């Protein structure tokens, strides 16, 4: 028996959120007296897989098939089902991201396993198998009891800090009996956002609203984001006006994020906007209107004009970095 966890890498380097998922799985394994088996696909080195032991994986099952280099939910599901059967997995963990949200529900449906999507806590085994998750787009949490024999969880990235420990994982090859239909989606074009930090994984986010007045002023937010190593986001009207790409819009009808730091500039703080960001650990609001509702949801507030305050903040960050 084991806790199975699907891990993702970019060109052979495992993503931080996957290390977090392994650590999460290790915690479950510890409290259920089992072990952690990570499942990795594609072109990744043995040493990188062995190093996953430092985060709690005892074993890594590795499937190499060139066709897995492009993610595809059917083929990945088959990989996970094959691994789950081999390991008699009782708990399966994925990430609540575009990969995890496409694979884990398929795996759950196939195994007839209850799913908790977007978990933000370890399971409470005292009352069954109860996991806390985000609901109402960050306005509340629900406690979900999984009653099926096998349990499937997608973990909300950035829920727990990643701590490196000791240990080496053993690597085993996993043979999967693919069929042609598993690869019937043809990839025509891939456009990776260049350089910047992906919003869903970002620990620091700089976000702008209509108060920025127009796309020509965004450079002040980009300068700040660059200095901090932050991702950029925006309010819905900004996305709707095509000032920014649609993927940056956060809120109830956009992305839900929970970074460590969310800096909201020229955003009024409408309930639909807050719904997507109020899981952030620390919120800074910069707005020229003292009555802006966002101040009520903020930890730190600055009253002032964005075009004056943000460049000053960027300078202050620069100075801070030079001294630390």
């Amino acid at each position, binding site marked *: 028996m084991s806790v199975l966890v699907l891990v993702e890498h970019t060109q052979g380097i495992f993503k931080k959120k996957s290390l977090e998922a392994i650590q999460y799985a290790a915690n479950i394994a510890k409290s259920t007296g089992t072990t952690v088996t990570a499942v990795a696909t594609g072109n990744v080195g043995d040493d990188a897989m062995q190093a996953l032991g430092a985060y709690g994986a005892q074993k890594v099952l590795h499937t190499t098939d060139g066709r897995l280099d492009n993610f595809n939910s059917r083929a990945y599901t088959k990989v996970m089902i094959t691994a789950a059967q081999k390991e008699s997995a009782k708990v399966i963990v994925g990430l609540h991201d575009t990969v995890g949200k496409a694979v884990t529900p398929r795996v759950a449906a196939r195994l*007839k396993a209850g799913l908790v999507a977007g978990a933000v806590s370890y399971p409470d085994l005292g009352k069954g198998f109860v996991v806390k998750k985000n609901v109402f787009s960050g306005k509340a949490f629900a406690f979900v009891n999984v009653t099926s024999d096998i349990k499937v969880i997608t973990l909300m990235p950035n829920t727990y800090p990643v701590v490196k420990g000791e240990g080496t994982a053993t690597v085993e090859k996993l043979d999967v009996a693919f069929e042609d239909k598993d690869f019937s989606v043809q990839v025509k074009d891939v456009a990776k956002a260049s350089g910047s930090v992906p919003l869903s994984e970002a620990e620091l986010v700089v976000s702008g609203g209509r108060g920025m007045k127009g796309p020509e002023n965004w450079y002040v937010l980009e300068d700040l984001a660059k200095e901090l190593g932050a991702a950029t986001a925006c309010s819905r009207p900004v996305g709707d006006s095509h000032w920014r790409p649609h993927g940056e819009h956060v809120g109830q009808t956009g992305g839900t994020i929970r970074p460590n730091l969310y800096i909201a500039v020229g955003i009024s703080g409408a309930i639909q906007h807050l719904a997507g960001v109020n899981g952030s650990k620390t919120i800074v609001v910069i707005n020229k209107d003292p009555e802006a509702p966002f101040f009520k949801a903020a930890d730190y507030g600055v009253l002032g004009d964005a075009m004056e305050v943000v460049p000053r903040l960027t300078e202050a960050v620069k100075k801070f970095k030079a001294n630390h």
Partner: protein
Amino acid sequence: MKILVCICPVPDTTTKVAFSDNNTHFSTQGVTFIINPYDEWYALVRALELKESGAATDVHLITVGKADAEPVIRKALALGGDEAIRIDADSNDTYAVAAQIAEYAKTGGYDLVLLGKESIDYNNGSVGAMVAELLDMNYLGFAAKIDIAGTTATVTREIEGGEETDTCSLPLAISCQKGVAEARIPNMRGIMAARTKPLKVVPAAAIDALTTIVGYELPPAKTGVKMIAADNMDELVNLLHTEAKVI
């Protein structure tokens, strides 16, 4: 080509979320239910466009829910679509919802199943992939653009850190987000027509829920904002470092 659009009723986006019975139930008192925005603005409108362009012959709308879901599915019919189906089942567990939809879709000969990228109440983003698995279909999540030519779909969608364009032959399930279509406003004609369109109520298939919600919690209230002078950004950076410990 027959399209099935999955419609989920959700509380209006301005709802102040509250719970009753010792935080075990979501209180629906005074709450207005709307069509999940992703289902309405993107999945449904794109299905209607495909019908208008002649690519699709039938657009059916399906919801899994008890009788109180009917006003919402009627609202969806007012935007367009040929008929609506309500599966008379509880909608508390993702697997159960997906299995009810798949059970019905199995016999309908649908070429395309369109869903929203997630419901704004339970935020699972899971029903689409589950339905695809249960129907042994391909699934493309987070679509921003969908084109159909004959029996081939071309879909541009969000992937980790970017965008990808895929082609895939039908049948196929796709979850939709911004970009797929532009929201429409229902008109009087649509609203009148919806009254006479068929709304089929289908008894629930015998499917057990695999999860139960045992309680709810509201996020801790913010203790109050600390205001920093606009000319003292060094102080803000210092607080973010020493107090909030986020940089």
